[in-house]
């Protein structure tokens, strides 16, 4: 039976070559897209899952919903370990900011690397595989370093590394570190990426002051004995952690909150948590899954439509089979076998498509996905998608075609073209509505990004180059600045914390006159020097910015933004006394108010900000970036001059620079990626949909060949006929628009809510999407229509 099904399936494929090719092409591209997207989704979902006990590891978060941070005190982990019996283990990791890169050297090989510090038991909580060294003792000694295999190769080539000494330059001095262990390179789907790890004790051995419970900078992880499955258990544990901290540090506010984030969720659900840099977002996983479903559905509908349309030529076959005793189930099976055969042929095409576009897709999506035919998971994925595509697209035709009553069919009473027309049209409308929604989404995302690009940020982001500067290197700054300013193309030089707000401090410890007791407003604090406003061209709304003419600005003056004035509820902020508690408490007057400028991305409203010049003895800690404004159009010359001056003045300090406006773009990398992906996939969606329309139009023209003949005999011109044939489909696309617009509006309105500053969704967007869909449909249909209209009517009417 199956063999006969297969033979009939193949014969039909060959008999209706044009329709088969359209089906295979459409389904192939659809399956290909789906596989690409699912590869991506699968990768996103795999983060941190390969670790042993991954599901029992949680990250400790501090703060309430409004300002959740991933940083805690270094003392928290050891305290939890000791005081909370249900916690099997707790450890911490301090990933130093990128602007803090340290210079490492072995022999004559030296590079800048990102450094992390971890508790001694880090590797007993995290089961990263060891290549050399001992897991238990790797971080015991303050002078030890754990490196990845990549780092080992970079410095030691093919040799073993354990026992060798890697020296690190920190705060202007060189320290020898003994490599105690080598771990495997961190898998790309690990949220922990720390190529070099020192023990926490290293910092203390340098004699640096640790601010204990006040210093909230490290990530704390706890490893539970058994998985806590319910929310109540997690909440109970969170409040125990809070109690734990309050017992040790009475100065912490009562309002302090703790919560726990499962490690396996940190990649996709960690967005919006301060000091947790994650590239993932569950929202985009969902969006991508939706796109995959839409594309597969559009391709499946092509098959349904073409097959039911074509199936009307097979009514006789169905009738005869039923007459000789085939049950409906057998016929359903036969048609499903046909669709599966086609789906598997399409799968071959899909793999070609995937192989061809994977490099491109990787670039678009920022991943390194690979195809592994030996991986059973991957094979299962392909097979599942193919079978789903086959069954999905085969189900309706099977049901429809097997429903003909044999006596009717054999008497010729089932007129081709009547059955299923309504459903077919409905499905075309559905397909095009989906495509139009995708086109609208693409346009809206594009518009929003253009809006961001073209909006006034409240300062001038162009023509500024930033150079990282750390620790002792700050000592050479004044001379550097003076030398740089000798060039007339250098318009401003300033020193501050890094200008992306990610690394800034945030505090609720701000006092002002008339502050209400429960007032819990939090303020960003930016440490910067007197040249910040002039270099970045930040506009003032009241008062003045810091100035060298007022020495007191160095110690007891603040500049705040308008949002901060509002948060403090001040009528006349100038000369008001405020106190800011950060590392130490500082008191001073507000000497100026800046206009609200967008120091953070458009996702959030401009938040209260206080700018202060750091204490002279803390400047090496706060100042991490030199920002230099150069004259527009002098990029290469200015950059060359800056580099030359830097190398002469700063000597060993590496010259690592970036353009400020480029760094701002990174804030929108997820949206940027979505725009590109949307662009490609909405193109493919409309392509597949019009492929189906092409087939349907040719079918429709064939159906109406007699009518066309008659009309031509009655005097219809080619234009008349083309219009008649196209009108039918144009009406469908118009209807699709009516359905698509409200859906797209709803979806994109919700998406835009991610932005505090956003563009609206305007009418032209809808009209443009509609016009695109309509012209694609017209182009597709008119080819068939014109061909039909040009045919000789005698051919159609000859047979009497």
């Amino acid at each position: 039976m199956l063999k006969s099904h297969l033979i009939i399936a193949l014969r039909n494929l060959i008999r209706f070559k044009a329709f088969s090719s359209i089906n295979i092409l459409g389904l192939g591209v659809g399956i290909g897209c789906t596989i690409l997207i699912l590869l991506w989704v699968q990768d996103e979902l795999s983060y941190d899952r390969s670790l042993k006990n991954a599901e029992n590891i949680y990250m400790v978060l501090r703060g309430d919903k409004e300002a959740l941070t991933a940083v805690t005190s270094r003392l928290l982990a050891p305290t939890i370990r000791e005081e909370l019996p249900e916690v099997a283990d707790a450890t911490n990791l301090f990933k130093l900011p990128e602007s803090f890169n340290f210079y490492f050297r072995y022999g004559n090989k030296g590079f800048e690397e990102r450094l992390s510090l971890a508790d001694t038991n880090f590797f007993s909580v995290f089961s990263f595989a060891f290549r050399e060294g001992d897991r238990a003792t790797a971080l015991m000694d303050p002078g030890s370093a754990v490196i990845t295999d990549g780092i080992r190769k970079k410095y030691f080539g093919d040799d073993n590394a354990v026992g060798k000494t890697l020296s690190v330059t920190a705060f202007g001095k060189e320290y020898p570190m003994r490599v105690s262990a080598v771990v495997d390179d961190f898998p790309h789907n690990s949220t922990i990426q720390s190529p070099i790890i020192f023990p926490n004790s290293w910092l203390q051995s340098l004699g640096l002051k640790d601010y204990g419970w006040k210093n909230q900078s490290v990530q704390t992880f706890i490893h539970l004995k058994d998985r806590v499955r319910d929310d109540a258990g997690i909440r109970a544990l969170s409040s125990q952690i809070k109690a734990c901290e309050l017992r040790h540090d009475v100065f912490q506010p009562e309002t302090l909150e703790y919560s726990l984030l499962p490690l396996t969720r940190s990649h996709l659900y960690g967005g919006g948590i301060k000091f947790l840099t994650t590239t993932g977002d569950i929202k985009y996983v969902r969006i991508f899954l939706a796109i995959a479903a839409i594309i597969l559905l559009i391709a499946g509908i092509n098959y349904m439509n073409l097959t039911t349309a074509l199936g009307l030529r097979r009514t006789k076959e169905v009738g005869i089979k039923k007459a000789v005793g085939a049950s409906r189930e057998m016929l359903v099976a036969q048609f499903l076998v046909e669709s599966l055969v086609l789906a598997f042929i399409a799968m071959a095409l899909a793999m070609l498509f995937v192989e061809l576009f994977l490099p491109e897709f990787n670039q678009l999506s920022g991943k390194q996905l690979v195809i592994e035919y030996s991986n059973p998971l991957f094979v299962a994925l392909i097979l599942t998608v193919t079978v789903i595509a086959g069954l999905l697209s085969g189900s309706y035709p099977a049901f429809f075609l097997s429903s003909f009553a044999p006596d009717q069919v054999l008497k010729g009473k089932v007129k081709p073209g009547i059955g299923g027309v309504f459903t077919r049209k409905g499905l075309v409308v559905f397909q095009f509505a989906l495509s139009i929604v995708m086109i609208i989404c693409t346009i809206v995302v594009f518009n929003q990004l253009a809006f961001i690009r073209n909006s006034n940020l409240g300062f001038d982001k162009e023509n500024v180059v930033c150079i990282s500067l750390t620790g002792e290197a700050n000592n050479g700054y004044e001379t550097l600045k003076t030398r740089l300013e000798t060039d007339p193309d250098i318009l401003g030089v300033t020193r501050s914390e890094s200008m992306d707000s990610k690394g800034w401090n945030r505090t609720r410890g701000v006092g002002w006159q008339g502050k209400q007791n429960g007032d819990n407003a939090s303020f960003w604090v930016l440490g910067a020097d007197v040249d910040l406003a002039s270099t970045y061209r930040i506009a003032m709304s009241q008062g003045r910015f810091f100035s060298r003419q007022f020495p007191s600005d160095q110690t007891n003056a603040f500049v705040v933004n308008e949002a901060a004035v509002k948060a403090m509820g001040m009528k006349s902020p100038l000369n008001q006394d405020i106190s800011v508690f950060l590392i130490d408490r500082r008191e001073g007057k507000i000497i100026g108010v800046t206009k609200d400028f967008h120091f953070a991305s458009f996702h959030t409203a401009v938040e209260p900000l206080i700018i202060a010049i750091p204490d002279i003895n803390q400047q090496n800690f706060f100042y991490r970036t030199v920002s230099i404004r150069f004259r527009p159009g002098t990029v290469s010359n200015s950059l060359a001059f800056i580099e030359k001056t830097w190398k002469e003045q700063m000597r060993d300090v590496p010259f690592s620079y970036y353009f400020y406006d480029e760094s701002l773009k990174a804030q929108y990398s997820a949206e940027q990626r979505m725009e590109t992906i949307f662009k490609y996939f909405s193109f493919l969606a409309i392509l597949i949909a019009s492929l189906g329309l092409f087939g349907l139009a040719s079918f429709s023209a064939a159906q109406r060949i007699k009518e066309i003949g008659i009309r031509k005999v009655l005097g219809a011109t080619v234009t008349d006929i083309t219009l008649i044939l196209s009108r039918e489909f144009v009406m469908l696309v118009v209807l699709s628009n009516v359905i698509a617009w409200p859906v797209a509006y709803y979806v994109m309105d919700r998406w835009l809510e991610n932005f505090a500053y956003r563009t609206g969704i305007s009418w032209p967007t809808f009209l443009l999407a509609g016009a695109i869909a309509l012209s694609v449909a017209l182009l597709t249909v008119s080819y068939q229509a014109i061909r039909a209209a040009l045919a000789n009517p005698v051919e159609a009417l000859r047979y009497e």
Partner: protein
Amino acid sequence: MTDSRSSASEPLIRLRGIARWYSSGFMKSYVLREINLGIREGEFVSIMGPSGSGKSTLLHILGMLDEPSAGEYEFLGEQVHKLSAKEKTELHKHYIGFVFQSYHLIDDLTVYENLETPLLYKNVKSSERKSLVSDVLDRFQIVAKKDLFPNQLSGGQQQLVGIARAVITSPRLILADEPTGNLNSAQGVEIMELFTKLNREGTTIVQVTHSEKNASYGRRTINLLDGRVEEPTHD
């Protein structure tokens, strides 16, 4: 060959050396050869001949639906073989009405709409269309059927609509391809009498038929055999 019956009116149609063949490989298979024919305005001509003798092809050529492979075709003094497709469409939509054996009504349109279709293509104004369709519905006594679809009519009724559609544009020439072929004899008689009446009112009619009886309604018969015109017969 010239018409032996002399008439005062100018010839409506003149064919000189018309041939139609299909090439298959190096072979030419002839459907029509060396047809010379004149038809004057007001004639009622029957074309007869066995199956495959080229009757329908000749009719299609006359109706400008098909092109001769060789020869000259003059219609109302116009050299048809030299006209473009567009000009031919113009010519035939203004002067020629077609009636088919299987009626060829458009299934999705009502009787009324079927009758209206040729007027649409002649760009007749809406009000005028209405009155023309009403006229013809009256004349053919099918007013009651105007909202029915073709498949709700009997064969005779469908052919009535087919002829009504052919005459609605007041053509000078009606070409009928076995108009009664699918009808019973009573319906056939009715249709042939209708043709006679139209002919009396001045419309030139050329019909293709198998039946001697139908041919006898015409005033001249052209016999085709293997693509050639046989000895003309006169009544």
